């Protein structure tokens, strides 16, 4: 390891916290805004200690109104600030949807580039934490469809740290989806490394028989599936997409040209989900290379169920392996 590098084992929560802290330190235009982000440090403690150290002017508890949070963040960005906004849970982003879709996403284009909108919207998303309604959803497709927004999701602490740095540095609005059920998973973070591009997919596990593409909380499931499949002699490549808009189609294509089979996995409902976009485009790009149709594993066309049913609803190891088997059977 080179001299001066700093490697630490961090949970995703701590990695995001460290990343926010770093940005607050290095750029006095960076602000943290949201419900309960101050003294409480957010309901997941992602902003823990930040208000104490940077004050109420930089780490701002807001009124309970998501449209207001995003709308005022837009105004602050117009004034030269770089707000990082927290939406408390996935299911509570919708009151802000109008401001995000009609204002935040379109302001740069409306001004023919003369305005920039460096706003990050953090959304803890996804299920698996035994929560009540509205606390377990995966709404990323509803943002990725909208031009002007970028959507990313880290699957590990290192990405959590660096992708947040890059999201804050970006002059475009970035919706940063935090895989809340992985918040306490720990892995190594090198806070002095030079990160790769924000929107590139990464080969998480190399393999040759089939590609599993996932992002956020599902990367771990796919890694486990690859390990299980390996025991049966199947070589599965796992791609961590990392970005849902843009999607690194070149990266997926490269993998699929090699493996000739693709299964896309996400928690969000399959219907009109990210898997559809990946399947459609990769099929077009790799029509003569695919030995099986691109299969999708994801949520059903159903409201996220009460928590006692979520293990059945969420794509787990078995459902992923079932899809792998079906794809390999072609």
């Amino acid at each position, binding site marked *: 390891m080179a001299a001066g590098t700093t490697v630490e084992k961090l949970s995703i929560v701590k990695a995001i916290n460290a990343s926010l802290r770093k940005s607050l330190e290095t750029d006095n235009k960076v602000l943290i805004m949201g*419900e*309960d982000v*101050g*003294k*409480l*440090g957010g*309901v997941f403690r992602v902003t823990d200690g930040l208000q104490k150290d940077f004050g109420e002017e930089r780490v701002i*508890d*807001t*009124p*309970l*109104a998501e*449209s*207001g949070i995003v709308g005022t963040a837009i105004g602050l960005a117009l004034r030269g600030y770089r707000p990082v906004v927290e939406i408390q849970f996935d*299911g*509570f982003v*919708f*009151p802000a949807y109008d401001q995000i879709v009609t204002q935040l996403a379109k302001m740069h284009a409306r001004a023919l580039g003369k305005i920039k909108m460096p706003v990050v919207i953090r959304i803890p998303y996804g299920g698996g934490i*035994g*929560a*009540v*309604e*509205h606390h377990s959803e995966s709404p990323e497709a509803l943002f990725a469809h909208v031009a002007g927004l970028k959507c990313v999701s880290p699957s590990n602490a290192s990405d959590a740290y660096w992708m947040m740095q890059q999201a804050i540095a970006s002059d475009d609005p970035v919706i940063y989806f935090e895989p809340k059920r992985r918040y306490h998973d720990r892995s190594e973070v090198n806070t002095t490394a030079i990160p790769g591009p924000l929107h590139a997919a990464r080969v998480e596990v190399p393999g040759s028989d089939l590609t599993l593409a996932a992002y956020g909380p599902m990367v771990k499931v796919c890694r486990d599936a690859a390990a299980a499949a390996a025991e049966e002699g199947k070589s599965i490549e796992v791609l961590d997409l990392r970005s849902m808009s843009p999607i690194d189609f070149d990266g997926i294509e490269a993998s699929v040209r090699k493996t000739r089979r693709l299964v896309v996995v996400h928690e969000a409902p399959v*219907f009109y989900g990210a898997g559809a976009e990946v399947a459609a485009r990769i099929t077009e790009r790799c029509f003569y290379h695919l030995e099986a149709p691109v299969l999708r594993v994801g949520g*059903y*066309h*159903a*409201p996220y*169920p*009460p*928590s*006692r*049913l979520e293990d*059945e*609803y969420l794509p787990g190891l*078995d*459902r992923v392996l*079932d899809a792998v088997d079906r794809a390999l059977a072609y």
Partner: protein
Amino acid sequence: MTVDSTAARKPRRSSSTKRTRAKQPTADQPELVQLLTPEGERVEHPDYSIDLTPDELRGLYRDMVLTRRFDAEATTLQRQGELGLWASLLGQEAAQIGSGRALRDDDYVFPTYREHGVAWCRNVDPTNLLGMFRGVNNGGWDPSTNNFHLYTIVIGSQTLHATGYAMGVAKDGADSAVIAYFGDGASSQGDVAEAFTFSAVYNAPVVFFCQNNQWAISEPTERQTRVPLYQRAQGYGFPGVRVDGNDVLACLAVTRAALERARSGQGPMLIEAFTYRMGAHTTSDDPTKYRADEERELWEAKDPILRLRAYLAAENLADEDFFTTLEQESDALAKRVRDAVRSMPDPDNMAIFEHIYADGHALVDEERAQFAAYQASFAQEGH
């Protein structure tokens, strides 16, 4: 119970001396409608009065005690892992029982996720409330059975549903009223403002009942407003009033008046019940991160149950028997709830695909069939 209603009325003080003491509006503590002081003394208010029989007074007491006991049991059940979460109403019993007992059967209630006391007044089986906190459903009861809508989690949304429902009541020419509960935090949501606008413009028979329990999770009410919340109504063209939310009599009297007003075609009204969330926001919350113990202690002195108990005792409106019986009733309720929760079955896996549409949806049918086949494949493998 032998205290007759004459006895019940006798000890009420004449209003003149007490009134001064009861309310001394200041800049940050504006007028608060109060009929029962924290010490349990009956006071009068020029605009709101109430006349209750001993039976009714004991009934209110009983409601509050049983609600608190149910709530405590639910908190325990959460700690024991039987519930995933619980949102305690501890400290808000008077606001909920007072307003809940002001309702007629044909009135309609739109609660948040914390209105266990109102649910009690509506005869909703307490165990019904626990389904969503246990994670077996997202509500699940039939609102029309008790005119008590499902708990709503997305802050403020239900105020618009209440307004629409009330518009329907008016269209039907019915003389029912509708009540919408929400919190101090919710007052910031655009939906609540739109509910104010719609209800005012259509003169809908809806009462907005805001329980200002001083906190929205970790945020004090000053993060939501810089003037008392009840004043919000004025600018929309209807009256607002602040009531002592720990005074069950005042809550009952004020809500009754507001409902009557709505029924008689005078449109919406806002009630701010000034109360306190004695416990954590939910069982997931840790209030030591953001508020001092002393604050809680100050409010403990204003406990809604203690003050009514003091009044009942001072005026000889309830004897030992009453309290003993109630204690037993409480224990029985706790046991019933505990047993019911523990035996609450997990939903069938196929329930994922149920009740998404009333008229069906081809994709749901397809996914249901696939899921069933997939599950069956395990059963077969298991052979």
